[in-house]
């Protein structure tokens, strides 16, 4: 055995572990008893995180403690630390009294530790279609039921604070539960165990006037800390205390650091295709009485097929597709549940209309009525889709924007379908289509006129890293409009050119659908609302 082999053997010898192993390291858990409540909150109160920002030194040990003590995946933690920057002029930072009764100015920069705010009106819970969230009736802790989660990630949009995070290994989201099992045993949550300066504690708060106490007022602009999402959305319970909160004009350090958000491609496809479906079906229902049976069947069939494809696309969005059936459970509160239910109903009625139309059973009148019903249910489904996004409270997804976008797609699809009719109605439809395209583009660009902080970030994205996509969409719109109008006109004036005209309009429709897909991707990617302050270091 050469010396190196001996050394390799010595290196591999781990007996030292046995020599120094300990099996009693008690003494850790008692250290934090003053930072947690001794008993469950009394009726009318709930637990909350309380953060003393003056004590927070920005070391971020809370983030790693949460990761390590909860056995989370690599890189996963239910806590994060951000930074708020005060205006530079010292005059803007009022001198206040610290504990030492010495005058100390508010800091130029403040770190902010954040986890789930265990809101009074949790957006995650309201949005969840699968009933995978509960708010504990005693502690008020908002818990995620991992086994019930279908991985739709809608809660990542309805939580204003980016708290639930999708775990692709498990196909579900996970989030902070305030270490409720630990609290139940009188142990401190992981982040409290990790904080060297005792900046985090658990206290109780009255559940009724949370908005008043937590945010200082119920004003629509009240926020937990500068740069956070407005508190009125979900009534977060976390209490932040500290000198820096009195500083006017502070901003999150990453206010101007805009990066494109998740594109949610299956949702992009689902939305555009379902709306296209409804548009085709609507135009068939409205005008199909004048068409041949075959033409009407094609219209109804196309609508139903597109609807079914949309449903399939939404399916691929789920992390737990086998649990997809749970998506209807939350219909009492979740617009996503309602969307799923109404969209399914729409597909069912549309398929029935197709069946009746193809088989001729029940006569043309029944086809007309069922087609009309399908169109109505389809319109309701689109309305539900819009509400899915409006309900998040995000400014960029406000009702006007979202309904014009979604409704606009329906209108474009219907008009494009009519434009393929090789008649003067088609020409008229094509012209109206041009107007709708123009109106839609105008509405989309209205964001550049806003001074809202969230919309400014959206505008920065659309004129920055997403600008090439936005430009390409406009070019596609122009091209599609021209092609469709040309096709419709040719079809109307020349009977012999009809097949060509239909093909041209179909091509234009495809281009237009492509433009709409890009629009919808930008709808997601450019939505960068205030959440909690991020950090640059």
């Amino acid at each position, binding site marked *: 055995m050469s*010396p190196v082999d001996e*050394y*390799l053997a010595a*290196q*591999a010898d*781990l007996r*030292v*572990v046995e020599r*120094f*192993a*300990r*099996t009693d*390291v*008690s003494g*850790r*858990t008692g250290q934090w008893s003053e930072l947690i409540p001794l008993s469950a909150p009394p009726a009318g109160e709930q637990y909350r995180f309380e953060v003393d920002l003056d*004590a927070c*030194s*920005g*070391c*971020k*040990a809370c*983030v790693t403690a949460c*990761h*390590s*003590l*909860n*056995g989370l995946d690599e890189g*996963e933690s239910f806590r*994060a630390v951000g930074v708020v*920057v*005060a*205006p*530079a002029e010292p005059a803007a930072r009022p001198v206040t009294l610290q*504990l030492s009764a010495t005058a100390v100015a508010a*800091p*130029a*920069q403040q*770190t902010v530790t954040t986890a789930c705010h265990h809101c009074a009106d949790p957006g995650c819970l309201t949005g969840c279609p699968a009933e995978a969230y509960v708010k504990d009736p005693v502690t008020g802790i908002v818990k995620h039921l991992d*086994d019930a989660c279908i991985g739709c990630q809608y809660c990542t949009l309805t939580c204003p604070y980016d708290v639930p995070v999708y775990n692709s290994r*498990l*196909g*579900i989201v*996970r989030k902070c539960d305030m*270490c409720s099992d630990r609290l139940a*045993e009188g142990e401190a949550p992981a982040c409290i165990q*990790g904080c*060297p*300066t005792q900046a985090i504690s658990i206290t109780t708060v009255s559940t009724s006037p949370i908005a008043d106490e937590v945010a200082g007022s119920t004003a629509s602009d009240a926020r937990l800390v500068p740069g956070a999402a407005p508190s009125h959305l979900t009534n977060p319970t976390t209490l932040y205390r500290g000198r820096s909160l009195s500083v006017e004009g502070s901003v999150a*350090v990453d206010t*101007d*650091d805009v990066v494109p958000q998740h594109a949610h491609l299956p949702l992009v496809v689902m939305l555009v295709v379902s709306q296209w479906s409804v548009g085709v079906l609507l135009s068939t229902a409205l005008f199909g009485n004048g068409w041949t049976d075959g033409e009407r069947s094609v219209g109804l069939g196309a609508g139903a097929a597109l609807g079914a494809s949309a449903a399939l696309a939404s399916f691929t969005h789920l*992390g*737990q*597709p*086998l649990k997809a059936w749970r998506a209807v459970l939350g219909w009492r509160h979740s617009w996503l549940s309602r969307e799923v239910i109404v969209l399914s109903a729409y597909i069912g009625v549309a398929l029935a209309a197709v069946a009746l139309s193809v088989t001729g059973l029940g006569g043309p009148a029944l086809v007309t009525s069922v087609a009309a019903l399908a169109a109505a249910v389809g319109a309701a489904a689109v309305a539900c889709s819009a509400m899915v996004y409006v309900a998040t409270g995000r400014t960029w997804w406000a009702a006007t924007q979202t309904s014009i976008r979604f409704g606009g797609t329906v209108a474009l699809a219907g008009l494009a379908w009519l434009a393929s009719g090789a008649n003067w109605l088609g020409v008229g439809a094509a012209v109206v289509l041009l107007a709708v395209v123009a109106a839609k583009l105008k509405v989309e660009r209205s964001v550049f006129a806003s001074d809202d902080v969230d919309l400014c970030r959206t505008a920065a994205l659309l*004129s*920055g*890293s997403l*600008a090439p996509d936005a430009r390409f969409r406009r070019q596609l719109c122009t091209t599609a409009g021209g092609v469709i109008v040309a096709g419709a006109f040719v079809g109307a004036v020349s009977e012999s050119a009809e097949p060509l005209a239909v093909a041209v309009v179909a091509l234009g429709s495809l281009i237009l659908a492509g433009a709409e897909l890009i629009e919808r991707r930008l709808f997601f990617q450019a939505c960068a609302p205030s959440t909690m302050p991020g950090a640059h270091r």
Partner: protein
Amino acid sequence: MINTRVVRSLAKPWKPARELERTPSALGLGQVPTSIEPDAVVRSVCGFCSTGCSLDVHLRDGEAINITPSPGYPVNTGMACPKGWEGLAPLDAPDRATAPMLRGADGVLKEVSWAEALRYFVDQTKAVQATHGPEAMAFLSTGQIPTEEMAMLGALTKFGMGITHGDGNTRQCMATSVVAYKESFGFDAPPYTYADFEASDVIVLVGSNLAIAHPIMWERVASNPNDPTLIVVDPRCTETAAAATHHLALEPASDLELLYGLAKLLIDKGAVDRTFVDEHTSDYEAFAEHVARFPVEAVAERTGVNEEQLDAVADAITAGRNVSFWWTMGVNQSHQGVRTAQAIINLALMTGNIGRPGTGANSITGQCNAMGSRLFSNTTGLLGGHDFANPDHRKRVAEVLAVDESTIPHTASWSYDRIMAGIDEGTIKGLWVIATNTAHSWIDQNGGNELLDKLDFLVVQDMYHSTETAAAADLVLPAAGWGEKDGTFINSERRIGHVTKVRQAPGQALADFWIFKSVADAWGCGEMFAAWETPEHTFALLQELSAGQPCDFAGIEGYEMLDSVGGVQWPYPSTTEQPDDSAERRLFSDGRFFTPDGRAAFIFDSPQPVAEEIDEQFPLVLLTGRGSAADWHTRTRTEKSKVLSSMTAKVNYVEVHPDDVARYELASSRQARLVSRRGAITVDVIETGTVQPGQVFVNMHFADTNQLTFPAFDPYSRQPAYKYCAVRIEPVVTSP
């Protein structure tokens, strides 16, 4: 697509909630994740900074699986910063060096056997020494490896291989404090214990962002029950300064004037402890005369700190019963760091604030074993805090180690910068780099990296084959990391703590200790290290070397004692009849210092101008420093932890005052060019009032930062002055 989703979902656990289930630990740890419930823990001192926190490494079936900070340990009392919690993550990285790697003719590093690597190493080193003289091979070591390994490297290179010059990255962090203490106290002896943070009523921090650089020491400040007055001297409004009672936001590099001005104010206010000064110090009168030249008006003008603030701070120090003074890299990494550190020491001496709880002139060092290197690197000082120039010391070391006394050099090694200059002038042709990342961290990086290219032979011994320095190496030796080896570290408060092996090293990687043993064997001087059988045997040798020195720790009864009592601070001599077993001990309670006359010396000098002044072309002062508590030095380890990386900057950034953002037409979160005479880098702009107008701050963790820094050095400590150079900033215009 749908099918693969369904298949994947079938494969996924049906009960994902189980993954987050917790179990009450049978070990008393409280609830732990059921999936990683430990059956035992082993205590080990953390391998990042000099605080020296103890970590309980969780074990299951002998495998390290998690970490919690050790409760009851006198340093960290159950707490750790993020790096400590993530101590195991760097061990699992895919870019670990798992076999020796030799650069082939094609320029690519290829794995070779240890035998071949050692043969190559010895042949090349001997060839360099034969061609260019024995001093042509040098080494650059580290403050990151256990004392036993440092001592072995120092003994092997100097006594075994005839290598003349070696230094460490510790030159970059605490050389200034070493020189300051040696001159003022007669020995490199930081006098404090962390309990002093809690016992002071006035705490003065100079050039120290404790909250970020040493979060657990900050914990001790925060738990001070006396509602202390906190005075922070720092050009930036750091996290630490933000919590200060008095933040003296001085002009960069004006600290010496500020401290002399404070000394004069204290004299004027009658704050001098005449009894202490008369009985225990020397040269006070000359010092008083010297600082008379620093009236408050002039000091206010020079430092930008107003007279009222200076006066209030002097009042606070005067009124303080137990005033402690602390400094870190803001002082050490200065062109006149030694005199600045001594100016702090002088404040403590003149006010008698030393030797009592809550007092002291206290240098906080950087790396986990910088203090071990200060005593045992065998570079600037001879092993055990001895002096190469002292024949008695050489004799004693030769006796203890049973080496031929004639092999012991009579002079100290060249300093790091001198070794780099030696490469430039061609006197150094071979370099052995151990556990440091010169190509990233050395000042004026572009200049430094050109030098590395001039070498005939560069060996890098590291955990990773991917460091910037390894990328330039001819030979890479794969080293085991913290957690994969045994030994001891000495922390900032002189506490010797035990580091325990809890993991198998990957592949053929060896602890530096075994690599040095292998090199000794291959060189033909293995016999010299027969007594150095294991790290623990070596520790006994080191104890013997320390006996009779101020740093005497001969009384420690092996690793068992270190493990059971929570580390031991030096001195802990074996001769003490009734050893002082207090968990927290400080020096100089008897007022006797280690100078020949037993008195502490007042040492002072005229302030010197910085090496590179700002001018019209480069109008901004560049400050560098630690960015985040989740980053460590050149990030070779911390970047391997996903949770640590998630908390730190993704790209390099510069912090700029809003006035300068406007003046130079920059925008927050947009790119800018930062240009010095030595290099130009592109960084993101962060607009913040934490820096003053005319100054910009860039963190030291990104590889490009040191392209800008100016190679100025303290004349006494040869420590690089990372904290000052002239730059300009320009917006980067990107077309959308």
